[in-house]
């Protein structure tokens, strides 16, 4: 049994050979002895105490540790409090700086903790994974087909349980047993899941029961579980709802249970929406959408205990390998992958949160450096006080303890203030943060976070208290009563200079982060999305239920709504589309071009599909490049035509004329479509992602039930929202429109994360720069005050004011240059770490670095102006008279 690691490491650091071997050996012997006699706990305690006392004895072997090491601590505290009260300005600045730093760090940590560090709110969450075909861009699990899911579940040994999920939308048209039929239909976010989904994640309904296996069938799936929120809001928390039916899309659904209030639909929200209704998937082999290439499900699994993630992934990959050989037409070269569920859910926001914590920690660090500088300067001024106390019999250790007690007192006060700030700060962060940060609502102060705060407070106290205390230790206070103070002041000056250079370096790292994010945002806002997002209103609709069972009925309803909306004042044009750019949907179809080498294979190109009414291009202002657009003449009985995006034309028919070519979609059993026109590409997923392959097909040929109404307006698009909504409700009974959004809101949402990172970095960089400038000012001002007499002598001996100015400036600039060198290296490193947030700019972007150089130069000159003027204004006569 080995002695505890930490004290052993401490001893190895403090003691050099040959003493190290002897001490470690002695203590190992004693530890082994005590372990057998009084147990490991007592032995460890003894080892710790021996270590700490040995380290103290390293410098003071004969002063044995006081029997009560805390004796006199009250006296120290009282004395410290008096000292702080005597310099209220200093104390307030110190407490405010520390409070801001500690409060900011605590707030940032509370968010990081809630989002990233806490285990997911599921049973044994470490064994939960996402499974799927790898996404082409990220390589992370993406969608898969039902039969693929079923086979993976049945054929892998390392998977204990698995569940699939698909998107759903539930429009509640009436309450239990027909009551509330007159209430307005309500559109409720929903998902469909395998019957065992909740059993797998370990959550049971609070009321009623979970789904049964026999309910997960095509003919029996119309049963639902409700969220606690929906149950209270729509059904008045009536427990008798369980076992009764409600109407969704005007069809009866049996309510089997209500989920607990604590359930947070993390998986649902990450993949689809914050679901409030769950129903079984209800697929079997014969379901039309169950095919292997019908990749519209997401899937999750629980790995058997003791099986590693890598082993499970390896098995899944080999199972898929075998399935690819079995069904080459379905899979082509498609593989499989698996990822811990936690990474899948919060992985995307990780860089953002580390940027946040990094930025506030940097500010705290600079704040501590400033305080250390202030304390050093004050320490130099207190030399006489310390000398007197020492002459009166206080030991050096006592004086150091006194200084450390003062620092601890300051940091405790700062920490207390910080906790107050953090309570508000955490809430402010949850509001300011991009809305799609999962679990951020859980951020707040609790035991864990407060423990972190205490640790930060203690560390901060050491960080700024230790250097002055060590200085006091190294100086022999008694000497300063009579001899000159040169040597100690030189050492003090050195420490302060190093601190200021360090502050400049940290500020530069933050400035670089802010600069890179500002450049990124500039690049993003300059990106042409391929359409004009201004004055565009969008509203999602779902035509589901008995009245909309046939395509012609849906199409006719669409036409009536468009006519009504077009007649509204202030409307320029209106159209329907099955999905819109930046709308968060993904709908790709296999694209089988006649004569293409991949025709009829599973590796045929996947093309983003937009089912639109003809006016859509006009509404979105998507430019026609060649050929023609879809028109009203492309009716259901007219020949089937499509319009493709430029990327599609270039990639599917490189070097050929795309117009006139024929394509089958989504499989080769489908109809032939002829390309009649080519339009500009749009950015579909986000502004930062390059355009994908896209194509447009008319609603008469492929009528969609889930569509987005898009309206181009003359003025503020939201001003017609309620009128448009009224038309939908009038023309389409049972259809509940989703909340309207403008396309500008969608564009802004797509850059939200980066804007947040930019704001955080810019704000903290400004604070950091200000603090560093104050530190620089303090150092130079102190230098000028101390050398005033020397400047006077120099000037009396013939030095010009410019010589003095050069002297002062060179002192300051040395620090700035040292900071620039260290900070520049740090900046490039930090840029690499936040690479995933950058767009169109390299981590070592020369423009950013040059801009920082200018900003730092200006700030450092501004910080030195006042002391510089004071130095050059020295009157030689006055300075010499003071002698």
């Amino acid at each position, binding site marked *: 049994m080995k002695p505890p690691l930490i004290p052993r490491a401490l001893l190895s650091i403090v003691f050099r050979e*040959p*003493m190290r*071997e*002897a001490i*470690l050996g002695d203590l190992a*012997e004693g530890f082994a002895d005590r372990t057998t006699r009084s147990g490991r706990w007592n032995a460890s305690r003894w080892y710790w105490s021996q270590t700490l*006392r040995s380290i103290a004895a390293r410098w003071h*072997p*004969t002063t044995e540790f006081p029997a009560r090491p805390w004796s006199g601590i009250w006296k120290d505290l009282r004395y410290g409090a008096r000292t702080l009260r005597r310099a209220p300005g200093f104390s307030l600045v110190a407490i405010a700086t520390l409070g801001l730093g500690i409060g900011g760090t605590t707030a940032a940590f509370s968010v990081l903790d809630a989002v990233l560090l806490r285990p997911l709110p599921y049973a044994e969450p470490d064994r939960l994974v996402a499974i799927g075909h790898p996404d082409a861009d990220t390589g992370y699990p993406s969608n898969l087909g039902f039969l693929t899911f079923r086979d993976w579940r049945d054929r892998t040994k390392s998977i204990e349980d698995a569940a699939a999920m698909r998107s759903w939308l539930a429009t509640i048209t009436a309450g239990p047993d027909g009551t509330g039929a007159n209430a307005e239909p309500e559109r409720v976010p929903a998902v469909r899941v395998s019957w065992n989904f909740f059993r797998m994640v370990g959550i049971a309904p609070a009321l009623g029961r979970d789904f049964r296996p026999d309910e997960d069938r095509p003919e029996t799936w119309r049963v639902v579980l409700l969220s606690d929120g929906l149950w209270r809001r729509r059904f008045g928390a009536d427990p008798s709802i369980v076992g009764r039916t409600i109407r969704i899309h005007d069809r009866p659904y049996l309510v089997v249970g209500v989920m607990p209030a604590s359930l947070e639909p993390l998986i649902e929200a990450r993949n689809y929406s914050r679901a409030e209704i769950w129903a079984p998937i209800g697929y079997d082999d014969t379901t039309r959408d169950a095919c292997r290439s019908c990749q519209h499900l997401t899937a999750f699994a629980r790995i058997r205990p003791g099986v590693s993630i890598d082993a499970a992934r390896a098995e899944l990959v080999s199972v898929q390998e075998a399935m690819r050989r079995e069904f080459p037409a379905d899979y082509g070269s498609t593989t499989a992958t698996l990822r811990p569920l936690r990474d899948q859910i919060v992985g995307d926001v990780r860089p953002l949160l580390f940027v946040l914590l990094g930025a506030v920690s940097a500010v705290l660090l600079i704040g501590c450096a400033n305080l250390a500088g202030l304390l050093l300067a004050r320490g130099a001024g207190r030399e006489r006080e310390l000398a007197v106390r020492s002459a009166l019999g206080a030991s050096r250790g006592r004086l150091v303890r006194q200084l450390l007690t003062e620092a601890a007192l300051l940091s405790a006060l700062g920490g207390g203030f910080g906790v107050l700030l953090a309570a508000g700060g955490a809430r402010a962060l949850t509001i300011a943060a991009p809305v799609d940060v999962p679990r951020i609502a859980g951020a707040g102060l609790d035991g864990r976070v407060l423990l972190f705060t205490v640790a930060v407070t203690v560390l901060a106290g050491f960080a700024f208290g230790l250097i002055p205390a060590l200085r006091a230790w190294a100086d022999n206070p008694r000497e300063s009563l009579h001899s000159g103070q040169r040597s100690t002041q030189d050492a003090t000056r050195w420490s302060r200079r190093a601190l200021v250079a360090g502050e400049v370096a940290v500020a530069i790292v933050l400035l670089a982060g802010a600069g890179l994010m500002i450049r990124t945002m500039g690049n993003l806002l300059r990106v042409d999305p391929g359409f004009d997002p201004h004055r565009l209103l969008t509203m999602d609709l779902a035509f589901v239920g008995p009245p909309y069972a046939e395509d012609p009925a849906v199409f006719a309803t669409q036409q009536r709504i468009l006519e009504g909306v077009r007649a509204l004042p202030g409307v320029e044009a209106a159209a329907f589309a099955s999905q819109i750019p930046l709308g968060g949907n993904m709908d790709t179809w296999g694209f089988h071009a006649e004569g293409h080498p991949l025709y009829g294979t599973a590796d045929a190109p996947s093309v983003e599909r937009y089912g639109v009414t003809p006016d859509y291009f006009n509404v979105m202002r998507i430019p026609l490049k060649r050929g023609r657009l879809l028109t009203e003449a492309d009716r259901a009985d007219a020949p089937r035509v499509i319009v493709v995006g430029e990327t599609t034309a270039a990639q599917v028919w490189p070097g050929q004329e795309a117009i006139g070519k024929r394509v089958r979609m989504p499989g080769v059993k489908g109809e032939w479509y002829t390309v009649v026109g080519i339009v500009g590409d749009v950015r579909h997923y986000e502004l930062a992602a390059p355009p994908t392959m896209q194509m447009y097909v008319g609603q008469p040929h492929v009528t969609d039930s889930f569509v987005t109404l898009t309206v181009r307006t003359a003025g503020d698009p939201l001003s017609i929202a309620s009128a448009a909504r009224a038309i939908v409700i009038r023309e389409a009974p049972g259809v509940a429109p989703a909340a309207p959004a403008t396309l500008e809101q969608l564009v802004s949402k797509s850059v939200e994360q980066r804007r947040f990172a930019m704001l955080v970095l810019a704000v903290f960089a400004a604070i950091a720069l200000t603090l560093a400038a104050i530190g620089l000012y303090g150092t130079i001002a102190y230098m000028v005050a101390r050398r005033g007499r020397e400047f006077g002598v120099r000037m009396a001996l013939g030095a010009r004011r410019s010589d003095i100015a050069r002297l002062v400036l060179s002192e300051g600039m040395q620090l700035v240059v040292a900071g620039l060198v260290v900070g520049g290296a740090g900046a490039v490193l930090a840029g690499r770490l936040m690479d995933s947030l950058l767009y169109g700019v390299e981590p070592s972007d020369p423009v950013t670095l040059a801009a920082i150089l200018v900003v730092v130069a200006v700030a450092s000159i501004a910080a030195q102006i006042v002391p510089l003027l004071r130095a050059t204004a020295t009157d030689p006569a006055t300075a010499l008279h003071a002698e």
Partner: protein
Amino acid sequence: MADFLGEFEQLILFAVLQLGDDAYGVTVREAIQSRTGRTISAGAVYTTLERLESRGFVSSWFGDPTPARGGRRKRHFRVEPDGRRALRRTYDGLQRMAHGVIVKLEPSR
């Protein structure tokens, strides 16, 4: 100054003398602890012994490594003639100072 010893140094030298061939960190510490009731740290013992060695009062050598020590060697100590003389002198001085007044330290009868 150089030829007199501090109180802690005297304790250590007495312990080393008494232990003879068996004098190393653990035994020295335990000897002092069992006779004076003072808990002392290994660091204090070695720092003091090293200072005594630099003044030529003790000498040290390494023994063989043992498993109980995690394969580390024992460091043995021996009191040198100079050390004996210094201890004699310091202790004599102390005794002379105490002569005749020791009774006054007894609790009053």
